[in-house]
């Protein structure tokens, strides 16, 4: 087929195969596409839109917290605001952000495949995402829930606000995430290029694989839990209702059985991005390839046995608390292995300080600090003071924003030329990166201190001695907001008016996704490459040195 196509091009003298962006430009050609790259781009646009929606909620919350008393909005609006902030950021941004957007785009490219295993299912997963988002949005507009994104019973089964559509939205989004995970696992198993053994796979693929395992094993449990809460609200089934003999803490167990591993759904792909970027910008092979690869699987495995550390003060026994505390330490160790190996990768490399590298530096600092405060929270007795205070809020924002969003931004800048064939303005990139890293610290370090000081989370009003730190945090959040806005502006300009990248591999990266043109042609490769070397092998500098076209 390709031969005849090439022949026809040769005969007509037309340009070679168009890239995926120009292969059909109608709206339908996007909406009905089976191309993993287009699905990835559609996911990318959607998650960025929802990131700004969630961010707007965050800014409104921070604005209210400038004053200790009632101010700007009433208690119920405030409660809805933080619920929606959590729901949007977690289910509509963080969970699909890196796997569904960048994973969809680069995973088949890295494997030397022409598409994911089930392209139609992939598109269906995107439509499920849109449906889930629409249902959740409908609920937000028609009242919104005020339960917090954790939906703790019996509050969530009794509050008169619109919880059911939000639950249903999260339920549907869960299935979107399951299908993406399923697709990735099958793709990795069956569509690796010749010569690409498991131990040659790029580290991003390893982390995406580990993420997919979690998505498949944990998400159904969330789905059934949310379903039970829904029937509880609608039909009064009473499974989590103490008045009917139900156990509200059972909900917390089932919820965290998903939601703790879900944290790793958000962070593991970020770790994969960092593994790629550290190598590319240090021009170095990954230090401890096996250690990084297997620690991803280790995190995915141990992540399933730590949920109880969310319930240290929920009345579980001392022994259970201890067991979960100890198991939680292991997740920290796997993360530490990765961090040391990333730093090791820089050793004797050739480091170039481009925007993605700035985010890597931010990421490394935030994940060590955020990760270690996480382990500190799992240190049973300290959790008693910190549980449900701003310390917890600051900790998980260090991981979710400090690590995941930094990695998302690193990926956005690193793969921007790959996806669109354009270059962005490096100077503005560095300005935005420093704004964001600075603003981030200014937002969340005061929140650590607020937690120490004893301010519980989800507080609409607070005693006056907490005000100074809250004002500092709000100031930081404003800075952070400007940083994100700046990125949208200069990337938008690059997309519309930016110069076309002259080379198809502007970073000189030896990741496998750069083996094809940028932007890639519709079916990625004219000929499936045969892989002969490890990814990121910079012993030679010929751009195609790792590949031998069969």
């Amino acid at each position, binding site marked *: 087929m390709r031969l005849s196509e090439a022949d026809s091009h040769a005969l007509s003298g037309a340009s070679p195969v168009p890239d995926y962006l120009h292969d059909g430009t109608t709206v339908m050609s996007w909406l009905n596409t089976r191309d993993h790259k287009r699905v990835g781009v559609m996911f990318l646009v959607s998650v960025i839109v929802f990131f700004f929606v969630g961010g707007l909620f965050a800014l409104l919350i921070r604005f209210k917290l400038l004053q200790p008393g009632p101010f700007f909005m009433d208690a119920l609006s405030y*409660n809805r605001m933080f619920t929606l902030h959590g729901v949007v950021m977690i289910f509509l941004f963080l969970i699909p952000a890196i796997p569904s957007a960048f994973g969809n785009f680069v995973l088949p490219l890295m494997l030397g495949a022409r598409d994911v295993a089930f392209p139609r299912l992939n598109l269906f997963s995107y439509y499920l995402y849109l449906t889930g988002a629409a249902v959740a949005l409908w609920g937000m507009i028609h009242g919104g829930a005020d339960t917090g994104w954790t939906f*703790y019973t019996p509050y969530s089964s009794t509050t*008169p606000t619109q919880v059911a559509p939000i639950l249903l939205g999260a339920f549907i989004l869960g299935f979107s995430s399951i299908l993406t995970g399923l697709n990735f696992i099958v793709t990795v198993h069956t569509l690796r290029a010749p010569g690409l053994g498991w131990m040659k796979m790029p580290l991003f693929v390893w982390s995406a694989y580990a993420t997919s395992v979690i998505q498949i094993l944990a998400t159904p449990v969330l789905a059934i839990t949310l379903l039970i809460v829904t029937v509880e609200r609608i039909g009064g089934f009473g499974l989590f209702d103490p008045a009917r003999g139900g156990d509200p803490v059972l909900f917390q167990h089932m919820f965290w059985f998903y939601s703790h591993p879900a944290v790793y759904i958000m962070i593991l792909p970020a770790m994969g991005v960092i593994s790629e970027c550290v190598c590319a910008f240090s021009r170095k092979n990954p230090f401890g390839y096996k250690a990084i690869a297997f620690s991803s699987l280790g995190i995915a495995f141990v992540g399933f046995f730590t949920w109880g550390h969310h319930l240290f003060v929920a009345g579980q026994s001392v022994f259970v608390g201890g067991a979960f505390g100890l198991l939680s330490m292991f997740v920290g160790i796997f993360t530490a*292995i990765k961090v*040391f190996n990333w730093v090791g990768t820089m050793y004797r490399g050739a*480091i170039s300080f481009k925007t993605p590298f700035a985010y890597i530096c931010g990421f490394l600092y935030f994940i*060590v600090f955020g990760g270690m405060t996480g382990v500190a929270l799992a240190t049973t007795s300290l959790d008693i003071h910190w549980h449900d205070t701003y310390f917890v809020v600051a900790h998980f924002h260090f991981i979710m924003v400090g690590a995941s969003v930094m990695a998302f931004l690193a990926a956005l800048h690193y793969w921007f030329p790959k996806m669109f064939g354009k270059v962005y303005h490096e100077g503005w990139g560095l300005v935005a990166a420093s704004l964001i890293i600075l603003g981030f610290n200014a937002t969340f370090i005061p929140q650590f201190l607020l937690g120490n000081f004893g301010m519980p989370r989800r507080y609409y009003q607070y005693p006056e001695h907490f005000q100074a730190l809250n004002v500092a945090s709000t100031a930081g959040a404003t800075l952070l907001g400007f940083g994100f806005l700046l990125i949208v502006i200069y990337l938008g300009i690059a997309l519309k008016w930016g110069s076309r990248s002259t080379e198809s591999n502007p970073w000189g990266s030896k990741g496998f996704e750069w083996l094809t043109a940028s932007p890639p042609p519709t079916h990625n490769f004219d000929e499936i490459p045969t892989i002969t070397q490890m990814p990121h092998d910079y*012993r030679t500098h010929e751009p195609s040195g790792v590949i031998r076209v069969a």
Partner: protein
Amino acid sequence: MNELLRRLLFLPEQASTFARDVDNLHYFVILTTFVMSTAVGLTAIFFFIRYRRRSETQTTPHIEPKAWMEALFVGVPLIIFTAWFFLGYREFVRQYTPPIDSMDVYVMGKKWMWKFAYPDGPNSINVLRVPAGQNVRLLMTSRDVIHSFYVPEFRVKMDVLPGRYTQLWFNATTPGRYQIFCAEYCGAGHSIMRGEVIVLKPQEYEDWYSSQKRGLADRQDGQPTALDFAPPLGNLVDQGKRVAADQGCLKCHTTDGTRHIGPTWLDLYGRREKLSDGSVVVVDEAYMTESMMEPAAKIVEGFQPVMPSFQGKMTAPETAAVVEFIKSLQSDAVRTGPSEGPAYAPIRGR
């Protein structure tokens, strides 16, 4: 040293026997965290300066970690984290095991207030009095949703669950007043579900406790007590005032005309309220009773349907008393606004 670190980290005062030990562990944990993250950051910066890219086609050697490095990468965090865990767990077991000689206080959380009851009689709302230097065990349960009892100065916290009891103990060292927070999100009034622990010197506590037992409790700090322990009450209005405080009505409804989570009760009786569906209702006995039993049925415009139902939680006389209390709350202010046609004329008193 302790004081310096405590202030640097914004930790509250240390007012219980746990506080000092928990804080020491806290300092150790936070300091190791700082050292580790700074070490990683500095190493990265050093590598960046030392190994800057010198040409665009620079090649680099292939380096694999040696076995001892991998061992170090696993070993160092393993040792640190296990140390944290064992230090923390020892303290955790201590916090979870109330001593046998503890004095018991029963705690009930409900939207959005705390009730405390001592085994042989006295009880109070939102104010817990305990003697200094005495082990106190709280036996806690909730009437509606999950709450969490939290006193930052004592470094103690425990969820308060409906349908079961949880316990928590502490030994307060310094007399003084300490704020109680609800740390588990419980709805519109979550952030105002606060109370106070008053730690008294043992002798003062004895005095207070015996005076409570003599039944002078409620006069002393203006805190109404539950009906069961109160002496026979005078008129319905006074009774209603007590019930309203007791049931937590006043957490959301003010009696001085200011707007809060719910409509104010001042001049409520006889007022024409516009409802969220656009219709108008005159507040009479029937509407007030309905609103207590089925709050979501008719919501006043501009307010949210967050009020819990009091069906089965208040007896008929209690309901009547609250209605009478609301009726008594009439200001003498001249009614403003356009005059409207004759409505039901409010009847004062009975």
